[in-house]
């Protein structure tokens, strides 16, 4: 299927172009900060000498284009520069945090995505029956509560009262996989509760919509069992929208969990970026922004590719 390869290749190319545009925006964003970057970094404690020293250190005298190219080529070769606040290389600061965030996100996703899709399917199958209504009520209740509140509730029940899981998620580097899972049980549960509702409702809606299509009616009239209708007709046609909502939630799991990190004292990317912003650590902020952007772009690309693969009309465009 040369057509398909070309489609996916085109999508990848767009992804790369988007990332390039994001890198321009991130760089321009810090350029556009009011005042001089060195002034911004130093705040009120700036003296002319320290400003000059920082300007020299960051090569702020060079034209923006030159600095942008230097920064971009640094990123492409895996050199993100050094943190201004601590002087450490950003990669050594960032990587453990990114690893922690991805571990938590992956754990939550492994629970939440199948759970949401199965609940959504069953709800669509038993539409307007007790199961559908109670599943909807439960998941809607869960997403209606702010995630820190859910976090505190889980801590109260499972850590303070029952003592099953730790209240704060500390992972020592030497811990085994099982211990790590145990340590992040509560934040993973919190994130599952926060994301399942959205994915489940969208799955249900997508399938219900397909089920009302004429060809499903036709197949019903032909006497196809309901399960077969759902799995061989409805689900493949609903995969596009489901993939999109799943991806949206996966992205949230990576970039939007700062409150959960704070509640469970989990050292992830959110906390890193907040600290960086607080300390005006510009290179670190840029690095975090780029990582978040890559997450979004890559995940969206995946969703598009899944949609293309699942949809013959997209696969064979006219």
């Amino acid at each position, binding site marked *: 299927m040369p057509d398909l390869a070309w489609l996916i290749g085109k999508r990848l190319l767009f992804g790369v172009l988007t990332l390039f545009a994001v890198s321009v925006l991130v760089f321009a964003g810090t350029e556009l900060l009011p005042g001089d970057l060195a002034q911004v970094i130093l*705040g009120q404690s700036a003296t002319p000498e320290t400003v000059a020293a920082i300007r020299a250190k960051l090569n702020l005298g060079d034209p923006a284009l030159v600095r942008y190219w230097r920064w971009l080529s640094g990123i492409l070769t895996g050199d993100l520069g050094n943190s201004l606040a*601590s002087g450490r290389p950003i990669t050594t600061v960032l990587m453990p945090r990114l690893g922690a965030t991805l571990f938590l996100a992956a754990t939550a996703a492994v629970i939440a995505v199948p759970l949401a899709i199965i609940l959504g399917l069953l709800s669509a199958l038993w539409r307007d029956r007790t199961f559908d209504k109670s599943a909807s009520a439960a998941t809607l209740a869960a997403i209606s509560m702010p995630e820190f509140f859910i976090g505190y509730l889980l801590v109260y029940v499972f*850590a303070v009262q029952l003592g099953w899981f*730790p*209240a*704060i998620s500390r992972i020592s580097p030497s811990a085994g996989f099982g211990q790590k899972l145990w340590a992040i049980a509560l934040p993973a549960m919190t994130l599952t509760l926060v994301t399942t509702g959205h994915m489940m409702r969208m799955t249900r809606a997508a399938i219900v919509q397909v089920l009302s299509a004429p060809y499903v009616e036709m197949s019903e009239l032909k006497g196809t069992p309901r399960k077969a209708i759902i799995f061989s007709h409805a689900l493949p046609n609903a995969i596009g929208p489901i993939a999109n909502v799943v991806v949206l939630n996966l992205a949230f799991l990576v970039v939007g969990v700062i409150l959960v990190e704070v509640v469970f*004292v989990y*050292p992830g990317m959110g*906390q890193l970026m907040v600290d960086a912003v*607080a300390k005006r650590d510009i290179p670190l902020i840029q690095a975090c922004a780029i990582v978040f952007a890559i997450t979004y772009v890559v995940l969206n690309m995946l969703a598009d590719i899944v949609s293309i693969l699942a949809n013959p009309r997209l696969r064979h465009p006219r």
Partner: protein
Amino acid sequence: MRRLDDYDTILRQGGLDRRSFGKLAAMLGAGASIGALMPGIARAQEEPKKGGDLSIGITGGATTDTLNPLLSTASIHAATDFMWGNCLVEYGTDGSAVPELAESWEPSADAKTWRFNIRKGVVFHNGKELDADDVVYSLNLHRGENSTSGAAGYMKQVSDVKADGKNVVVISLESGNADLPYLLTDYHMVIMPKDSDIASGIGTGAYKITEFDPGVRVFGVLNENYFKAGRGNCASVELVGISDPAARTAALQTGQITIMERVDPKTVELMGRAPGIVIHRAAGGGHYPMLMRCDTAPFDNLDYRLGLKYAANREDIVDKVLRGLGKPGNDHPIPSGDPFFAASLAQRPYDPEKAKFHMKKAGYGGEKIPLSTSDAAFSGAVDTAVLYQQHAAAAGINIDVIREPSDGYWDNVWMKKPFSLSYWGGRPTADLMLTVAYKSDAAWNDTFWRRPDFDKVLLEARAELDKAKRQEMYTQLQTMIHEDGGALIPMFNDFVDASTDAVKNFELSPQYGLAGMRAPERVWLDA
């Protein structure tokens, strides 16, 4: 985003003194004799048990942290510095200056030249023996125009630091200062081996840092050669950065940590009732002034200021805003535990009649008086302003509470608006507190109160070595601020920490919370 605001404050303000403004750095307490204040706290004299692993949940950690003590600002940094390092002088639990790496010291008659005798036989973690050169090197890190140290402000008065032989260090000052030993208790000024990497965490302290994950965890194992008897009792100590008070509480309740720094005032009572949990409460020098600009009408009128001062019900504010975890203020910045506190000065009462009288004399006709506030000043500042509004209404005073934006409070409101709420972390000595905020030419004279006679006595008191004479002078200074100054100071706050009941010898300090940030070396575990 409380934390963000705090950092923002620290950054915007730069410099040591402003740093202590942020709530994060609300640690610089003032000298106080806590033993007299808190007789209920057992001064555990049992034999310390050795061993056990201490874990402390503490605030202020950030990804950007380093082990460089010069850059310390928050609790976790100070506690880390005191884990691996020692100063020349230790701030004693009774507010006295206790010999630490200096065995003894003697000032010249004018308090301008000080000789410190360095303790012999103390060994750094890297095996080097401590001598006078290490001390000179370490102290000089805080001097000079380009020093990045948080203690650079204090050290400006030092004109020379030099070694006299292997075990004596001579410190010369620009002008006499009887409080020099106290200044050397600052956690920034821990002693490091000469020419060492200042971010290596190598010192003489009770714990050798073996793991450092910025903002997340600091881990140290016992230094078997520690020079203090009865100190450094646990086998290991870890500091865990936990910024969320609810998470700290849950971690303590579930036994993931043994000590929790900073209990949320709202939950102190509940926690105190929980089995196995002990609350540690120490009076400190942090206070919350309502600042009136003495150079701006109508606050340039003494009667106007007095009227507003009599219109505050301080007990009520301490009860409601601090939940009783503090003390009423007497319109001067020296806390009741300070050795030079003016005990003879009567507490200003809540007296609406007197307030009315003074306001009338000042020609006040019932117009709105804008009072700027924001929880950026301190947590509870808005409540304080609203309470005060109610108190003042009883005296016919019409306070208009203005909620200013938190962002930029220290830039746009503090020292700009004529009547605003603010926060001061205490200072280790009365002299520092008065110098930094009340001397006519002080950069942060935030009431714009200028009295040459005050400045004169302040400088005399600083160089006076006779304690009785100093007491008299400081009483005079506090009285001047109390009667004439522009700060309405309704309250001083307490430091409140908690621990499991296995933690013994949690020696309260009037200087900072967490046993003066020295809990790691002071406590022992009764397993």
